């Protein structure tokens, strides 16, 4: 249940992988596109099971807890499977569209009462274009409100494959000055601003179509988060 990722009560899907690495990132565990092992000290009982089962000898137990050697860790998740206290969590789980869909519609009653729905966030959801596209299409077919949160750095295919199935795009423009953008996020914003312009054209184009179809709340199709 999320109340912060768009209108109404929502369930948010956090996708792995992001082209930016913002200094203030809220979800740094979602930057890498690969599954990552994460250790939570408050849960750890110090049993050492993880050290024993790791096939890559990437883990060690010290006075301050479990140390992960990122160079050796392959993100296989075996330690997390065996960790009795869920102190080691594998962040990044493989989901099929159908199974994820089943999970997401459990809160349907709350979406309906609040005009809420599903938000794909991240990471950068648009990186997994095909998957997100299929998921949103399926949700939309069920009449569920769909939103995508993006940093603006995406390929052309995203328009047709994802945005055409989205009711709302949360366009998170981090900084207007490209130099500052690069300083804070590790990447310039030329492409992002360019995409934004194309988004405006896309809206105009869709606007026309929608008017012909006579449906939809057009002005909420894109909302920029600045």
């Amino acid at each position, binding site marked *: 249940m999320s109340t912060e990722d768009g209108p109404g009560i929502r369930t948010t899907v956090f996708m792995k992988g992001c082209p930016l690495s913002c200094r203030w990132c809220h979800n740094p565990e979602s930057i890498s596109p690969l599954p990552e092992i994460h250790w939570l000290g408050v849960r750890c009982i110090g049993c050492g099971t993880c050290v024993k089962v790791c096939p890559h000898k990437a883990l060690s137990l010290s006075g301050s807890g479990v140390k992960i050697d990122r160079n050796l860790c392959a993100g296989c998740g075996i330690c997390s499977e065996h960790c009795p206290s869920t102190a080691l969590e594998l962040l990044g789980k493989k989901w099929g569209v159908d199974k994820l869909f089943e999970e997401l519609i*459990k809160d349907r009653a*709350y979406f*309906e009462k*609040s005009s809420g729905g599903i938000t794909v966030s991240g990471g950068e959801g648009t990186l997994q274009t095909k998957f997100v596209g299929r998921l949103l299409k399926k949700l939309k077919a069920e009449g569920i409100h769909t939103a995508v949160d993006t940093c603006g750095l995406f390929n052309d295919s995203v328009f047709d494959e994802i945005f055409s199935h989205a009711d709302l795009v949360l366009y998170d423009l981090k900084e207007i000055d490209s130099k500052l953008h690069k300083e804070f996020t590790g990447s310039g914003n030329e492409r992002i601003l360019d995409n934004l312009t194309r988004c405006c054209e896309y809206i105009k184009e869709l606007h026309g179509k929608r008017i012909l179809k006579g449906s939809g709340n057009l002005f909420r199709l894109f909302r920029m988060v600045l």
Partner: protein
Amino acid sequence: MSGSSALKQEFKIREPEGLTPRIKWLRDYYFKGASRNWSNETTSWSTGTPWDAQYNELTFYIVPETYALMQTIYSSYRLSARTVDLHKDFWTWTLPERRAWFNREVMVKYLPKEILPGDLIAGGRFNIMTSHCLTEKEAKARHKLVHGRSGSRAMMKKFHDHGYGNSGATSGHLIPGHERALKLGWKGIHKELTERYNNLSDKEKKSEKGGQLRGMIIASKMPRDLAAAYADLCRTMAGREQEKSRKEELIQMGDILSRVPWEAPVTFHEAVQSLWLNHMLVMSDENYPGPGVSFGRMDQYLFPYWEYSIRKGMDREFGKEILRCFWMHANTAYDSMIRTGNQGITAGFGQLITLAGCGADGEDLSNDLTYAILEVIDEMSPILEPKPNVRLHRKTPDELLDKVVDMISGSQGAPFLLNFDERSIAGMILEGRRAGITDLINEKNAWEYAPVGCLENTMVGNDRSGTVDNNLNLLKAVELALTGGKDMNQFIDPITGKADKIKQDGPSTGDPRRFKTFEEFWRAYEIQTKYLVKKITDLYEQFESIRAEFHPTPYLSCLVKGCAEKGVDVTRGGAEISMATIEAVTYATTVDSILAVKYLVYDKKLCTMDELITALKDNWVNHNILQAMAKNKAPKYGRDDNEADDMALRVMKLWTDETWKYKTRSTGRQFRPGMLSWNYWAGDGYIMAASPDGRARGQFLSNAICPSNGADINGPTSNSNSVGKALGGKSDKSPDSFEGYLNLLPNGASHTITFNPSIMKSAEHREKFKAFLRGYIENGGTALQINILDPEMLRDAQKHPEDYRHLLVRITGYNAYFTGIGRELQDEVIARLSHSRM
């Protein structure tokens, strides 16, 4: 919910603002507690016989905190009792007549009568302990049944000591027929009773039925005589009063009291005055203040009087002022324990009122009085009594929901509990069918239901369902399944140090180490569950039959439909709908424990049954890896995980089906299922053995229908979805469904969710919260209480209790002052807040 950072704020305890000088004085005076000159402290009264006694411990068997004090309390009331001069024929009367006469004598002639400055309602002292009124022979017989070797006290203690739960023949917990008493006046009730009696044959007049009706006739004159005494007092006070407007008020009150509650009230002031006296005398009659003596749908049956008086020119604010005085009176119930703590240490009272809710066609019935009452609650908060319960349903108007959400956001412990009509009504309809009383509860009238005590749904004015009488720890069946029917730990009496031998208490279900499949384990659990249900119904029979024989409540019987008709006291099953509820405790701990056995031993084979049992016997000490797996890896109820929630439903169906099989033998009351679990989940956590879900002995059990602490890691919507599924979920096909809802617990189930204040931080968020409630109507349970609390503030309150005297928190179905609930429970409330696994 996400919403990462709580707003940094200064911790402010809500205090009422803008009260009128009258109410401010009354409220401040009330909170002076033990230093007040006036109080409603309990007084004790005797027939003067050497065998006399007052305290009826059967009604307190469900309060384990009192066990150690039982004999002391019993003796204190005996020793402090003042003797009442008896009528010369007293000992020739039947017991109901004696009790009715004795209580009337004490209330009318012996108890002092006062009216506090500015008060608009009369009826001050009502906490009394009155003589059992037994003859020597009767007293001896009762003594043996209660205090004998296998007497009720010994059996009650054994049941509790060994972790089964508790049971008692408890007073209150019903909604008297207030609407009828207002419509007829006591004059009408008296007339009806007299006619009924006169129509009896001579033989019947000499029978128990005749005695019962004579007792009720005596009782029916008590409100008239008491009101007359208060009317005199008002006039005397008016004569001495210098201040003109107060003088007029007192004259007015005198006039009102000389008419009602004997005559049917006409104005709102008369109706509220009647209601207060009628209600307060129930508490006197039962010798126990406010244990779930509830008002029902007050905004409905008082509305015609409200409308009348408003039409006749009553200022709306004056109408509210009458209600505020009524509110203050309800709180004086706590004066019974005034010297043992601040007002309401355990908040064990529940004079519940019901507001709003649907009508016959599903339309909403809220009216101007509903809002006036909500305003009064808002203005008076924080205050404990009466406890309001707002009924929500699909057609609840936005206006009401806005008011509800505003009030929740502006308070700490929500100022009321929410009840959900569709799910609740589905439960009532199921009850009608399973108990074979569809003439009394059906699709046409089930909407008239109202909750009593905390959240226990019953019908109104004709229903006693004993809603806290039986509290059963379902988890005991898991323990017995793991031991083949014996206690896992030996019981050692903490006071005497005496150890009970471990015996074959439950059925012998075999050595679980030999169970090859989970289904074999389930079978053992099933047999032990059936044993538990039978055991508690047998135990209750012992208490119920003693109450039926020795403790009639003739005044209350006048207010419960069925008693006069049958000539049978309400304590003997006189109510038209006469039920006894088994409230299951430890539900989520039980479900999670079964899930853990399945996961650890059978599905994943992470340990053998022998290793698990050894770990439990060792209270998990030196088994920390297995304990961590049980806690963290095994599935849990409360996450909207279908595998776990299917198990929850399986557990629910088993114990509820079993419950419907029993009736009390002495009084013919049908058992029905519910989940309240008051505060037992805390105390019994120290009694019950370690459980397979990873809980060590000494840790709290789960509360009512809530997921185990820390288990609801998927947030409030998932938590609520699980609760709805555990009650039966939704189905249009089932014959038991109502509007598509199923509910296996007609009593209802307590569900508490705690939110961080950030959920209410903006208007947009408040809209989302409203939508959450609308979603809960669809997917959730029967009753929800909401805490809006910042854990940091609570930690500060633990450090500086003196700054937080009035901080109210929801425990389960009731509010309590945070600083008064004891450290363990405080920690538990803080732990609930996290919504995350530690």
